[in-house]
């Protein structure tokens, strides 16, 4: 009997490729699979043991070569580089429950027939962006591993050794491997050399993939939240129009309740504005502001301030049926519940991944300081120079990746307030106006991801890291 592939919904379904790759390279994520878990656990444990073994070898090599300063610096940089990878690996392993919980928050979301189309559109935008991000990062990581391996075969594979007896620095041969590491076997030549080479290639590729893919998971979550916020901003205007029909006479209210065709790219708009709109971003289209007939003439529309329909048997001025009135009320409920859902997701993301970002920043700061020191010793296009620049660019790119998404989240969430203000709330009902008030009040404070409350993830952080790096470099160059 064939085992049915379980249907994953929500965020899990969107991030399934990412999760699958993470499971394939050995992360301790054991949900969302069919089949025996024991084999996967075994695989992950073996991967952990191998990585720790290699990391300890690197540390032993570091400890054995502390006399010569340049060797010490280079080995420390390598050790810190792989500290990232081990840290992320162990962090995801320990915090797998947090990951499952964050994914589970968006298992199901509310729907509303009037906004389903916009929801689907932004969801597909988010999906395509997430896939593209995953592809780019995986490709870049593989290319870096290939580049690193290629670079090993250029230049001399030697190290500096401080001879204590003669008190001078001599040059000693070491095996031509990607990482300077101690091995319990002699890896200078022969079979053991090829084993070490293959092992290091596996180690480099898988470690970097592990670290980068967990960052990509975080960025995908943040991306998803941003697109949801875009969706919410997009439906604000139609929501105002809808809620205006509750207690203001609107000539074209029937059009609002029409179902939109699946292929249309426009937001829910009034009949007579459709020919003036070329795209959904009609807040920029100034001519649209005065295009509604309702604004020009007083004949179609009674002034909102003096309207008092209490004496009209409680029936709606636009003659809405009970069902339509319910639909309007539920639209506001949809908006607010969706917003609360996004806020919950963002705080879960911050709780789950904040500490990992903090540890990343700590290791990166030290590594970048040492790299600045190494960079002062560059005197030409050598293997050394390319290595240092490679490390530098990689470290900065990692920080840039999560800073840019964190920054986008901050911008999106604070622009919800502007979107709420810029929709035509003055045409809306009293309910709509108080709705806009409360939304503006709540969205004044932007949603941020913080690294365990030490810092907020934004481009300011990246700028300060970059600035500190450049400052150290300048100071060290002066000191030489």
């Amino acid at each position, binding site marked *: 009997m064939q085992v049915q592939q379980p249907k994953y919904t929500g965020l899990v379904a969107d991030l399934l490729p990412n999760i699958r790759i993470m499971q394939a390279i050995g992360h301790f994520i054991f949900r969302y699979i069919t089949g025996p878990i024991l084999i996967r656990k075994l695989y992950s444990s073996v991967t952990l043991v191998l990585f720790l073994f290699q990391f300890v070898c690197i540390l032993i090599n570091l400890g054995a070569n502390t006399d010569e300063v340049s060797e010490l610096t280079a080995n420390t940089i390598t050790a810190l580089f792989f500290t990232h990878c081990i840290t992320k690996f162990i962090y995801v392993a320990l915090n797998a429950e947090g990951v499952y919980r964050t994914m589970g928050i968006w298992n199901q979301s509310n729907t509303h027939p009037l906004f389903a189309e916009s929801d689907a559109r932004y969801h597909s935008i988010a999906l395509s962006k997430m896939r593209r991000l995953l592809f780019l990062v995986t490709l870049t990581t593989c290319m870096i591993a290939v580049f690193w391996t290629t670079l090993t075969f250029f230049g001399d594979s030697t190290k500096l050794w401080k001879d204590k007896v003669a008190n001078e620095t001599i040059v000693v041969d070491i095996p031509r491997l990607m990482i300077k590491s101690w091995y319990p076997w002699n890896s200078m030549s022969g079979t053991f050399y090829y084993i070490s080479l293959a092992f290091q290639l596996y180690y480099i590729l898988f470690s970097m993939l592990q670290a980068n893919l967990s960052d990509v998971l975080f960025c995908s979550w943040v991306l998803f939240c941003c697109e949801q916020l875009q969706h919410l901003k997009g439906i604000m205007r139609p929501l105002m129009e809808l809620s205006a029909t509750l207690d203001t006479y609107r000539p074209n209210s029937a059009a609002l309740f029409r179902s939109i065709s699946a292929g249309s790219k426009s937001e829910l708009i009034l009949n007579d504005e459709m020919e003036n709109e070329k795209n959904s971003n009609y807040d920029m289209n100034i001519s649209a502001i005065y295009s509604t007939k309702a604004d020009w003439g007083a004949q179609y529309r009674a002034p909102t301030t003096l309207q008092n329909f209490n004496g009209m048997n409680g029936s709606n001025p636009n003659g809405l049926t009970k069902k339509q009135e319910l639909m309007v009320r539920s639209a506001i409920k949809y908006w607010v519940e969706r917003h609360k859902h996004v*806020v919950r997701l963002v705080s879960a993301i911050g709780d789950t991944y904040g500490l990992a970002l903090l540890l990343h920043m700590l290791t990166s700061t030290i590594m970048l300081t040492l790299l600045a020191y190494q960079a002062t010793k560059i005197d030409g296009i050598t293997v050394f120079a390319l290595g240092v620049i490679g490390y530098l660019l990689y470290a900065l790119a990692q920080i840039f990746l999560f800073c840019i998404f964190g920054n986008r989240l901050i911008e999106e969430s604070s622009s919800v307030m502007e979107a709420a203000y810029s929709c035509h709330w003055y045409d809306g009902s009293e309910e709509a106006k108080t*709705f806009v008030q*409360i939304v503006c009040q709540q969205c004044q404070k932007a949603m941020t991801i913080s690294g365990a409350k030490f810092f907020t993830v934004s481009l300011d952080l990246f700028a300060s890291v970059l600035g500190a790096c450049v400052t150290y470099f300048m100071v060290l160059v002066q000191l030489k």
Partner: protein
Amino acid sequence: MNLSENLRIFVTRIKSYFVSDEVRNFVLFLKDFFPSENVYRLFGFTFFNKLQNNTNQKRQRWQKGIIWTVISIYLFFTILTTIDFAIVIGKPGKFAETVETFGWIAAHGLVLAKIFFFFYWKRDDLMKIVERLDQHFPHSNREQLQFGVIKIYQNLKTLFRIILSVHAWNWLHFVYLPLILFLIENELELLHPIYFPVDPLQPLLYPIFFILQTIDVLAMVFLFVSFETFTSALICITAMEFDVLAQKLSQIDPESDENAEVKLQRIIDAYNDLADIASELEDIFSPLLLIQVFAGIFMICVCIVFMFLPIRIYFMIKFVAGIITLLVQLFCICFYGEQLQISSTRVADEAYNCNWYGKNLKFRKIILLTMLRAQHAQKLTGWKFMDVGLPVFYWSLQTAHSYYSLLSGLYET
């Protein structure tokens, strides 16, 4: 009751508290649980005098005697240390002693400020605050479980254990190091350097001074522990009350509940009262917090200086213990200050989470004004110079480090 009986009752009560799950009234809670009240009684200070209605004359005289003894010991050593500082400052070769005496002046000054503050100047205000908090305090068992009140108490217990163990460990170092020095290298050295007309290292005077200094440091350590836990507990419980309000607010549903508006009004009244309590706390504690932060910075700086001076290895441990203790002290205050800010703004966030989008417009407007008010966080400040929170903690570490660089630069010259 004498000292040993007091200690026995103190231990029994703590044990019984660990066993029972009942959460009692706040004032009783403070009295029975925290070492504050019992330790104050040990050293003669009483905080909850009015509540005890203690008219036992003998006991009062005994307490007054202890108070004056302790204060006189403190003042004695503060004056001696200050004189020593005045003598050795600027003298070449006496850098270590200058720095150490400065650190001890800061420590003694801080404790004296706290004694003066808590037991004489602000005692009545603190009592009023405790009574006001007491009115918010009783929560039904269901509420306690639902809103995580029990978790907060357990956190406070852990806090007390951590603070007590760290401080006791620190005190032990101060005491056994001169003993080790005497046994191993046959040298006499006091716990901290002082100036006395007659040489205190003489075999006759040395035991007296050693015991006096031990009492001095012991009392200092105990009072630090008590003050820290008492202050932290007050701030923590205020923050917790804000949290409970926030959670109650998020559960209000005007669509299904007729009394929703009444409940909302009650919550708003409670919020206003708590905001008032928080600003009272701020009025009371702000000068003390400022003094504490700066004294902490100076003491950390002293410890760092000593860690890098060429002194004997066993003395290094004293300063490592000192740094850890100071960090724990500062962190407690800063952490709970930050908690207060977070909890009071949480009310605004949870107001958004309630079911306000129904038909009731009046309800929406009330929620809006609640959010407007609650977004302004209740802060504890250090006499308006700084908002006490985690940023202040990092700032003080950075400042201590920069003072250390300055001092080591001076030492080079």
